[in-house]
């Protein structure tokens, strides 16, 4: 029993990362009908940004120029990183997707992949081969909840993810930009007729997705501390799978898909020979998509942003 509870916690943590990153794919998809294949690398760059922000702030604290308790430091890092990361997304859209707005979508996918490779190599070239170890913003602690052990990081990850999801919900439902995003996902073309500049909404969506990836990056960096320029590749593809699994363009779907992929992976690893993880996890994905060809929450040939 405690075993299961423990695994549930593990799955929720992993699922949080997948969900936060999958949201970036899903939101962009819902308005542009386009998968941002550079998103995994946006996540990587965002994590590096987070690293520098964290190191910088810790430096300031150490030099006692910034007397902040650790939780405030964490929040400050998170907010700053999300803000900075959003520009990465905007830039990616500007370079890789805007010039190809009317081109076949597959071409945009290729430029996305290329931008991803560019970012990987760029980070490698700028920062060299040395590994970055994400600083511990919050001293790790382990709690015992009945029979299960939970680290404060796990709780933080889960709590932050839920908080961000709630904020995202509020943003999408109670701001005009959020309404515009939802409107655009329903009927892309008609948006300019309401006097809404389409490019602003698109940039905003990219920014939002990247900011979430930035948050995921901080949480990820704190949980799995070593950063390298290729860290975004696999997790990016997996979050992409999660986004599709939930149903493309569905925010709710992306979140559920993310948590589900996390759960499948953890449970397979926990109950079966773990070398079979990918084999079984992706066979499940394949089966789901064979029998529910439009994902769990997707609709046939439509993209609706829902929550």
């Amino acid at each position, binding site marked *: 029993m405690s075993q299961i509870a423990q695994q549930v916690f593990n799955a929720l943590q992993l699922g949080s990362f997948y969900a936060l990153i999958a949201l970036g794919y899903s939101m962009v998809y819902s308005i542009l009908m386009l998968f941002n294949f550079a998103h995994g690398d946006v996540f990587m760059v965002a994590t590096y940004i987070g690293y520098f922000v964290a190191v910088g702030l810790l430096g300031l604290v150490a030099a006692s120029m910034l007397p902040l308790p650790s939780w405030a430091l964490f929040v400050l890092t998170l907010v700053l990183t999300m803000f900075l990361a959003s520009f990465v997304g905007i830039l990616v859209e500007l370079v890789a997707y805007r010039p190809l707005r009317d*081109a076949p979508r597959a071409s945009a996918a290729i430029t996305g992949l*290329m931008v991803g*490779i*560019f970012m990987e*190599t760029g980070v490698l*070239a700028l920062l060299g081969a040395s590994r970055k170890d994400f600083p511990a913003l919050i001293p790790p602690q382990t709690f015992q909840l009945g029979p299960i052990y939970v680290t404060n990081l796990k709780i933080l990850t889960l709590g932050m993810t839920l908080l961000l999801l709630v904020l995202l919900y509020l943003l999408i439902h109670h701001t005009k930009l959020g309404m515009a995003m939802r409107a655009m996902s329903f009927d892309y073309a008609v948006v300019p007729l309401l006097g809404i500049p389409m490019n602003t909404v698109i940039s905003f969506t990219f920014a939002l997705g990247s900011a979430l990836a930035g948050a995921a990056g901080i949480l990820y960096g704190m949980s799995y501390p070593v950063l390298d320029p290729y860290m975004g590749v696999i997790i990016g593809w997996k979050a992409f799978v999660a986004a599709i699994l939930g149903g493309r363009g569905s925010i709710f779907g992306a979140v559920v898909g993310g948590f589900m992929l996390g759960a499948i992976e953890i449970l397979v690893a926990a109950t079966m020979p773990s070398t079979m993880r990918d084999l079984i996890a*992706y066979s499940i994905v*394949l089966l789901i998509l*064979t029998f529910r060809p439009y994902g769990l929450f997707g609709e046939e040939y439509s993209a609706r942003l829902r929550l």
Partner: protein
Amino acid sequence: MSISVSSTPFRRSLRSKLQALRDVPVGSWFLGAALAVLLEWYIGPALAYALGLGQIPAIFGLSLILKKPWLIPSVLLYLVLIYGLPLAVMARLSAGLIRRLEARLSTGVYVGLHLVLLFFLLWAWSSADDYRLLVIRLLAINILATMSLNIVNGWMGEFSVSVAGFMAVGAYVSSVLMVWGFVNDDVFGPPVFPPQLAPMAFPIVLVIAGAVTAFSALAVAIPSFRTRGDYLAIITLAYVFIVRSFFENMEFIGGPRGFMNQPEVAGFPMVFFWTVFGIWVMRNYVTSILGKATNAVRDNESAAEMMTINTRAVKITAFLTHAFWAGVAGGLYAHVIGYINPATFDIRRSAEILGMLYLGGLNSITGSLLGPVLFMFLSEVLRPFQLLKWLVIPVILIYAMIRRPRGLMGFQELRIPFLERRRIAREEEKLHGAAGD
């Protein structure tokens, strides 16, 4: 300003010269290239030594230029002397002869002759340097894989990323069969058949490997009945993950440690033959009505159904053809490299082949040739840039995609004048025949 005015006559003469060269038939170019290769073979090393290049520059000296810029004049001189001049002169001189030949030969013989010439040409060129030999074999394999992918992504308009998975299946199946059959190996024990037979058996093994790959591709072909676009893309992605994980768990063939000891049967002739054969078969398919039905499925699936096209059969055929040839490409790859492991066939390999495909252009045989050639050429030439290479290549590709969103040769084919003339002649004949009735 004055320069441009004064250069105009020069330009004009240059243009007329270029125009003259443009009319030169392909065969003459091949002859010219043959002369260049011969020259390189016999006097290349000496010339290169004399020019201070040390040895014949592997890929037209381009990577040498980047590495040692002070050698640029020497490299240029070498290129002009060994390649440029003989090529141009021979091409011009033999043009008349080839044209006269053209008139007498049937299309099949004509094309066959060209292929034979091309084969020996490439063989001779690449044999001058083993590095070239390896690169050209890998290039041929990439061309085969790209062309097969083009059937699904280009002609049928899906977005499949499973090519690495197909290559993995083909590579493993062929490797296991060859090692089991013809090699004394610590896993499979002594060879089942006499090892001398290996080169003869290899084509059969490749066909089996292709067939097994095609069978495994049913996992993505069947969902394609109900799913299109992005969901199908994910299914193909899942296929890559599944295949990789599957081979990692196959302990008896090395698991993640990989599998080696493949006999050396994939020499240049073998690879060349399979590539040409594969392209020929796929060309036949996509130009037939059965194959063009993939286009109908892409452009408008519902209209295709009404026009009696069995879209399910079309989808299955397209995927299985893709898988078969990607499997063959994988089998060739395994025997060229002589060592494979599951990590060789990860999603990055798919991405690379996708890059080649979209650079070259969808729905185009020429594009499937051009994409890999350009991509590998860039990749080899920019090697001296080291790390920066992977900053430069993406930028070039992004630029290319922005300028030509459908790829360089998307939806077009290079028209070979001779074949064009034949086609026109055939059509005129048909018209006359019809009029005569």
